């Protein structure tokens, strides 16, 4: 019999999100599903690079560590797992998982894989598409393209769940769609039932950053208190067949779930609140309100949605040169002047070595690294940390930046401490295009026990 209230938990909000709260939620939260979101905008480009070097890699590097922690308790408590940890290689992820699971006491695992988000080859035939960021043609970055992935929707996730597999692995899927997928599958909601898609999409949006809903990214001592922040619990949503949604969190965990935390999270990464575009619908939260039903229990009302757009958003990762970086600290009398002299010394040494940088940034951590210099007078700090970062197409020039910063230990202004050379980092930047939906073919493949 179909359960009348479906409970879906948030198990991860980024690839290196904390694992213990996910285990607690699975063990104590009476979940039906746990969704683990693990892909930032550019991570998939890096993982595509891994795959190109080793065809068995390319999924989220922490996948096996996370799965080892959450799969056995999920099995014990009857919780199904949905995750985009497949990244650039969902099939490879499933096979690696199936190979490892028997060693964790799960010998008979089944895993459904959603394919089709990787549109790298398709895009080569659509060089005329317009980049959303700057209006330039896709052609301008095609020669440097590392990856291209469409944000797929909840329909594909639901189809993967229809196989009955305990675990669903995807590549790029829009974050809220990971959560809407189990609702579509469980309740059989029509994919044009906009009121329910609105509710499910909003629930997913609220949950997708785990602890940011329950008191993380929130506390400000004296102004905004969070009880037992160290024991911050992850959230879940209770959904009914008619699309009523109520948020909760792991019983007995730390943190808080109330109007204030919900309001911060509903607007997180949102632009026009009347038009939050996902692959499933265009969500409108302008009429949303929160009702505190009990301690750490919040009802969410008033989500609306309009029909989805005719396109998928595609994130294109491309090689964009190198960034070199180094840091050094100064303290005590005249510390800021010594740090400023060190900046000039590093710049001049790099210049005399013939290195050229398209962009360079010099920060004094403790003074201007986060908020910049807005012209308002500020007291000089007792300690200051110099940071220099620069962009270049030359790896050698990038490597020289941190080396020259660190060289200030012996050959710069006096009393320089704690120098670090961060070396050179190859940059995978991202831009986006819109691709007509009908160009994208998705497919569900079942791996493991059938």
């Amino acid at each position, binding site marked *: 019999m179909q359960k009348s209230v479906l409970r879906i938990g948030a198990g991860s909000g980024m690839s290196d999100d904390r694992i213990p709260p996910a285990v607690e939620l699975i063990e104590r939260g009476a979940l039906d599903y746990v969704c683990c979101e693990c892909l930032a905008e550019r991570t998939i480009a890096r993982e595509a690079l891994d795959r190109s070097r080793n065809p068995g890699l390319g999924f989220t590097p922490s996948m096996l560590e996370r799965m080892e922690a959450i799969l056995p308790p999920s099995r014990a408590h009857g919780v199904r797992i949905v995750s985009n940890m497949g990244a650039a290689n969902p099939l490879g992820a499933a096979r690696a998982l199936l190979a490892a699971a028997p060693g964790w006491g799960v010998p008979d695992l089944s895993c459904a894989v959603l394919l089709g988000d990787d549109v790298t080859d398709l895009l080569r035939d659509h060089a005329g598409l317009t980049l959303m960021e700057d209006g330039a043609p896709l052609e301008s970055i095609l020669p440097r393209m590392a990856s291209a992935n469409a944000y797929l929707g909840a329909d594909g996730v639901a189809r993967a769940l229809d196989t009955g597999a305990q675990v669903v692995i995807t590549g790029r899927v829009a974050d809220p769609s990971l959560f809407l997928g189990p609702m579509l599958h469980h309740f059989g909601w029509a994919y044009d039932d906009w009121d329910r898609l609105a509710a499910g999409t909003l629930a997913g949006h609220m949950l997708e950053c785990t602890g940011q809903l329950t008191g993380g990214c929130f506390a400000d001592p004296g102004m905004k208190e969070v009880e037992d922040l160290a024991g911050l619990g992850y959230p879940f949503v209770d959904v009914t067949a008619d699309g009523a949604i109520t948020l909760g969190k792991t019983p007995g965990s730390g943190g808080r779930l109330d109007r204030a935390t919900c309001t911060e999270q509903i607007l997180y990464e949102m*632009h026009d609140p009347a038009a939050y575009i996902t692959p499933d619908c265009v969500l409108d*939260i*302008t009429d949303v309100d929160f009702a505190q039903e009990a301690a750490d229990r919040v009802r969410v009302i*008033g989500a609306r949605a309009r029909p989805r757009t005719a396109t998928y958003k595609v994130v294109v990762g491309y090689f964009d040169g190198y960034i070199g970086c180094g840091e050094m600290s100064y303290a005590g009398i005249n510390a800021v002047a010594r740090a400023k002299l060190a900046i000039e010394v590093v710049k001049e040494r790099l210049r005399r070595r013939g290195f050229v940088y398209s962009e360079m940034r010099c920060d004094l951590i403790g003074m201007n*690294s986060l908020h910049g*210099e807005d012209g308002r007078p500020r007291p000089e700090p007792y300690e200051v940390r110099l940071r220099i970062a620069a962009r270049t197409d030359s790896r050698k020039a990038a490597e020289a930046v941190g080396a020259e910063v660190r060289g200030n230990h012996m050959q710069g202004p006096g009393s320089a401490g704690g120098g670090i050379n961060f070396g050179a980092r190859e940059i995978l*930047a991202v831009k986006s295009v819109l691709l007509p939906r009908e160009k994208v073919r998705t497919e569900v493949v079942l791996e493991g026990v059938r």
Partner: protein
Amino acid sequence: MSRRVYDLGHARAGDKGNTSNISVTAYNEAAWQVLRAKLTEAQVLAAFRHLTPGPVRRYELPKLRALNFVIENALGGGVTRSLAIDPHGKGLSSLLLTIELPD
């Protein structure tokens, strides 16, 4: 009544590409009335002008007593290529809270 945004509301910053969005949620109804009337796009742009030429767009959510500011070109070229120590601009919410509102 204090006119520092920090004392009237709390804030969170998010990122998409080279755009930062910062929400400001009022602590109470009186604070909401002040924020709604005084914390304008121009006020926010003035506080961020050393970081971005803008534009800044403001959205109102009266039921939540919240404002959402969308600040374009504020993230040093975008999260993936910025040279900044905080490429996501997570710390920019606390810059917005330093704004002093005019009477």
